[in-house]
């Protein structure tokens, strides 16, 4: 009997655990270690953040689902990895610290035959003074990164709407809270939902809405932008995104590294090196991501964290990490099997793996401050990575010498639906697909992507898709009948 331990139960970890348990059956053991007691369909946090959904609609308890699936669930956070075991034992293990199950604070060693790191990110609010401390959000801004954050955001939004009803003009600032953020798409969707909400509440004319981003152009999305066919042209996502903002009367600030947040004000450095301020009454600023801070030790107890993890805390896998200039970046730099090069029984999936480099062109201000989006790897790519890694481990347990499945972001696409409201007959969402996620200028010399697989359009239909995705993925995550038929 082999034991597979999965650290994390987000999109990547939960997908990996679900498929591994199904494929491996009772012959082997699947253990999930996550500090959370609830699973959260994060894309719908946007709707929670404008009061259109409740926390209960986007979360559910993990324990009964894992019990049904025969998965050993440990509500605990992973602390360290010991891939060589310890003195007197060759068996690799991780140390965990319980956060629930009536064992909070207790530590334990958990041995493994295979390990998947799917911890997701640490929400690094502390990287920007005033945005928060460590992974804790501060008091000046709101966030939609977790369901609880989104509930708080909706209450704050409601309070601002009340002020506008009383005739008090309000400024809304939404975007990225640091020069090295990713997840611009979440901020993009949230600002359109706020704008829609204010219209519905009849107070839009009392609001100034501003988008602040570390992107050098709107529509970069951390992917260096994309192109698709529209109106007989091959159009840049820059034009597509700018159009959405202009149509709604939303202003934007580009290339901004927010370096300080105070009550009602952010200070930021722009790509031209100038420093400026923006006042706000309500601000939702996405924090930068970092690794969760796992440590690694060899058999002698020596710290080998640098061997397993990149400096940003994400796990090294089969990527080409050789530093090289933007002009020399290739699709083949990106990992395919997501296997750690030093310890072949360790894999990383989702946000937890270390990208070889950015996707967007690196930029910095004349002061030397890097201001560029980091690569997005949430949602659909995370799920595909989780499934591929689980399939490889299944086959390796059954005798394969090497990973049998790949999930390179240079060989997969992604779909993104950004809502603007929740109505089935009002509001208009933007539906985008991109293939591949990493531009491949050798395969697609024009724009780096398959023009027939990269699309963007605005309309009610995308709202319907967003509703279906919400219900379908929660159904799938609950492992209800037919869950395997719903694709990642």
């Amino acid at each position: 009997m082999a034991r597979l331990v999965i650290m994390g139960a987000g999109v990547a970890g939960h997908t990996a655990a679900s498929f591994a348990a199904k494929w491996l059956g009772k012959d082997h053991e699947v253990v999930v270690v996550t500090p959370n007691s609830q699973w959260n369909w994060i894309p719908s946090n946007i709707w929670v953040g404008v009061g259109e959904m409740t926390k209960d609609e986007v979360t559910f308890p993990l324990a009964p689902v894992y019990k049904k699936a025969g998965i050993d669930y440990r509500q605990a956070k992973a602390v360290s990895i010991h891939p060589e075991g310890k003195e007197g034992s060759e068996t690799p293990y991780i140390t965990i610290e319980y956060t629930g199950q009536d064992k909070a604070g207790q530590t334990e060693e958990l041995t493994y035959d295979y390990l998947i790191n799917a911890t997701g990110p640490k929400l690094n609010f502390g990287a920007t003074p005033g945005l928060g401390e460590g992974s804790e959000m501060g008091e000046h801004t709101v966030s939609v990164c977790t369901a609880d954050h989104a509930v708080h955001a909706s209450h704050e939004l409601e309070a601002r709407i009340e002020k506008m009803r009383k005739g008090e003009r309000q400024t809304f600032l939404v975007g990225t809270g640091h020069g090295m953020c990713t997840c611009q798409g979440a901020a993009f969707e949230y600002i359109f939902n706020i704008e829609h909400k204010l219209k519905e509440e009849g107070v839009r004319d009392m609001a100034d809405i501003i988008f602040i981003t570390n992107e050098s152009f709107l529509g970069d999305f951390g992917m260096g932008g994309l192109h698709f066919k529209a109106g007989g042209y091959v159009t840049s996502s820059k034009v597509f995104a700018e159009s959405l903002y202009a149509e709604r009367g939303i202003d934007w600030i580009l290339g901004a590294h927010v370096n300080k947040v105070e009550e009602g004000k952010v200070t930021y450095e722009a790509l031209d090196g100038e420093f400026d301020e923006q006042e706000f009454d309500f601000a939702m600023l996405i924090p930068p991501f970092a690794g969760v801070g796992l440590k690694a030790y060899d058999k002698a107890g020596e710290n080998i964290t640098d061997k397993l993890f990149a400096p940003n805390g994400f796990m090294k896998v089969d990527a080409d990490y050789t530093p090289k200039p933007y002009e020399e970046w290739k699709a083949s730099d990106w990992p395919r099997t997501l296997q750690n090069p030093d310890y072949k029984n360790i894999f990383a999936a989702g946000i937890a793996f270390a990208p070889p480099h950015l996707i967007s062109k690196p930029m910095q201000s004349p002061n030397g401050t890097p201001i560029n989006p980091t690569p997005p790897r949430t949602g659909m790519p995370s799920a595909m990575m989780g499934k591929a890694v689980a399939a490889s481990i299944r086959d390796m347990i059954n005798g394969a010498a090497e990973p049998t499945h790949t999930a390179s972001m240079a060989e997969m696409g992604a779909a993104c639906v950004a809502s603007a409201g929740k109505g089935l007959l009002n509001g208009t969402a933007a539906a985008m697909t991109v293939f591949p996620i990493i531009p491949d200028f050798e395969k697609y010399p024009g724009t780096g992507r398959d023009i027939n697989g990269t699309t963007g359009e605005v309309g009610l239909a995308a709202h319907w898709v967003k509703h279906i995705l919400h219900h379908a993925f929660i159904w799938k995550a609950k492992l209800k009948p037919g869950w395997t038929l719903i694709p990642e």
Partner: protein
Amino acid sequence: MAHQHVQHIEPYSPQFGTMIPGGFQKFLRTCVLWQIIRFIAINIKMTMLILKSHH
């Protein structure tokens, strides 16, 4: 005659340099019949994308 479907855009502002949907485009975005067709099209596109992405 004023064209109400396009709100005023400040000349030479960043918003001035992009495209704005016209009345017919806005109508199509919420026209249920047209959107049913687009819904089918989006689902086909996403399905093709998923099929191409798994290895």
